[in-house]
């Protein structure tokens, strides 16, 4: 559950209505996600929800990534340590996975639209793309493995790659009436 809710201190009636009507359902939805932090901005106001997290022992990146994979297969799994976000590239079709030989190895920087592997389904090869610049942390599916939908194929670190522009959620601003 959210530990703290940061409003912007406004005490007027519309803001308290916003808090009473909108925050509770938002907090409930947020609690069921794996996200550690959520910022929402609407015309009525902005809030930031932060989850209380048991601080995990720092680990080497691939180990952390593998540990993350054991739970449900989420496409985006933020961690609380040092701002790293490991992204899992997973299968979106059912088929036989094969990595691109020598395309990249762990620790390597991968470009914008690099093909990391293929999934062969119904005699067609579907490319598995990097989906943006990133650093390859690990290949977690094996060559020739039958993969189903959502099966993790690669773990990448997008935080070390050139930064994408920040989402337009900041800064927190006062509610508009």
């Amino acid at each position: 559950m959210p530990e703290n809710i940061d409003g912007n201190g406004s005490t007027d009636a519309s803001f308290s209505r916003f808090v009473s009507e909108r925050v509770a359902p938002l907090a409930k939805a947020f609690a069921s996600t794996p996200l550690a932090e959520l910022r929402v901005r609407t015309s009525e106001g902005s809030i930031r929800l932060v989850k209380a997290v048991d601080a995990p022992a720092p680990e080497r990146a691939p180990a952390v990534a593998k540990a993350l994979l054991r739970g449900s297969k989420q496409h985006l799994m933020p961690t609380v340590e040092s701002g790293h976000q490991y992204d899992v590239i997973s299968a979106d079709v059912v088929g036989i996975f094969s990595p691109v030989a020598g395309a990249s190895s762990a620790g390597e920087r991968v470009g914008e639209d690099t093909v990391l592997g293929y999934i062969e389904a119904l005699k067609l090869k579907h490319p598995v793309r990097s989906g943006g610049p990133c650093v390859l942390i690990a290949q977690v599916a094996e060559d020739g493995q039958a993969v189903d939908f959502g099966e993790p194929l690669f773990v990448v670190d997008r935080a070390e790659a050139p930064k994408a522009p920040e989402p337009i959620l900041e800064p927190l601003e006062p509610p508009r009436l």
Partner: protein
Amino acid sequence: MFDKVLIANRGEIAVRVIRACRELGVRTVAIFSDAERDALHVRLADEAFCVGPPPAARSYLNVPNIISAAEITGVDAIHPGYGFLSENAGFAEICASHGFKFIGPPAAAIALMGDKASAKRRMQEAGVPVVPGSGIIETDEQAKRFCAEAGYPVLIKATAGGGGKGMRIVGRETDLGAGLAAARGEAQAAFADGRVYIEKLLEHPRHIEVQVLADEFGHVIHVGERDCSIQKPGHQKLLEESPAPNLDPEVRAQLCAAAVKAARAADYANAGTLEFLVAPDNQFYFMEMNTRIQVEHPVTESVYGIDLVRWQVRIASGERLTVRQEDVRPRGHAIECRINAEDVDNGFRPVSGKLGTVLLPGGPGIRVDTHIYSGAEVPPFYDSMLAKIIAVDRDRPSAIARMRRALDETEIHGVATTVALHERILASEPFEAGHTYVTWLREYLLQPAAVGG
């Protein structure tokens, strides 16, 4: 016999098919969506493949992923269950072209009977009575002429329809234009096909359907009838029974004979159902054919002692249907209650969520087909049926008593269900007397809740 079968479905019917396959020594492959990793059918199958995210259009209807899963696992055949891809002739063809036997009728029979207009035409040619209908409506003028001739009230239906979508009742000529527009719009939205036709609306008809089984060598039998007149608003069945109460034996014989004739006329194979409307004057009319196994098939299995799903697999694998018509005899009476996760008082709104304790009934003469268990998730993406309770006993009054006992034992916590509604229906005088018809429940629910125990 097949070595391995993929079940392209979910829920209780996937469980039912897996059970039939295992009894035949056939290995099973389940498919599931991202929302159903812990579903019972996934647990019971020998192998399971996630084929997509929760929405059915991207998982249980995701043909490329399903066929790919079938190729990877090396199955011989695909059982479509009901709903989803079961009455999709294109899917049956794709299965065949990839070398998988589709456990159901030939694609041509699905296509013929799936189009209501062509189905009716073929039935008329075969001498099976059909409800007076207009054919596809091109102009409002044509609609007006038909209705004036057939007499109001009339029912506007979508050519591609099903499940009550695109249906409109029109009671008088001044409402016809608006009814046509509404039905066309709804049909276009639901089926991407806005064509509609008009039928004369029968007053107080019963829905009685006949189960047929046919092998691929031309042997066709019927396995008796089911009365499915207890329907929710929107023409969705809620309670089914066999035999149909108070049905004249001669009419029953005519219905069953018509069903066999209809199946032959459609070059049918495998299990199928012919749906008829039976008017109070005992006139009956072909409505449509369901070219698949149906939800309510256990009622027939219980009364006739014939395992319809096992026969589906055996027939598809090329076996001959060894049951002769003269060996098909009813024994006793069976009733099925569909237990849905629905808020009855709120227009049968489907509900979802995590189930608490689930206690399902048992004991003599009770069968429960379900996929739920204590703590299971009811996802919001699929149909709301949780379980089917089937009671069988020597006659109708004792089957009703047995069902009431079973419903009383049933406990499903965490979501609203139709259990209490079934108790009300079973205790009502018209049901006990067997005097119900397709709109009876809708009318009954509008009465003050004074009826029942």
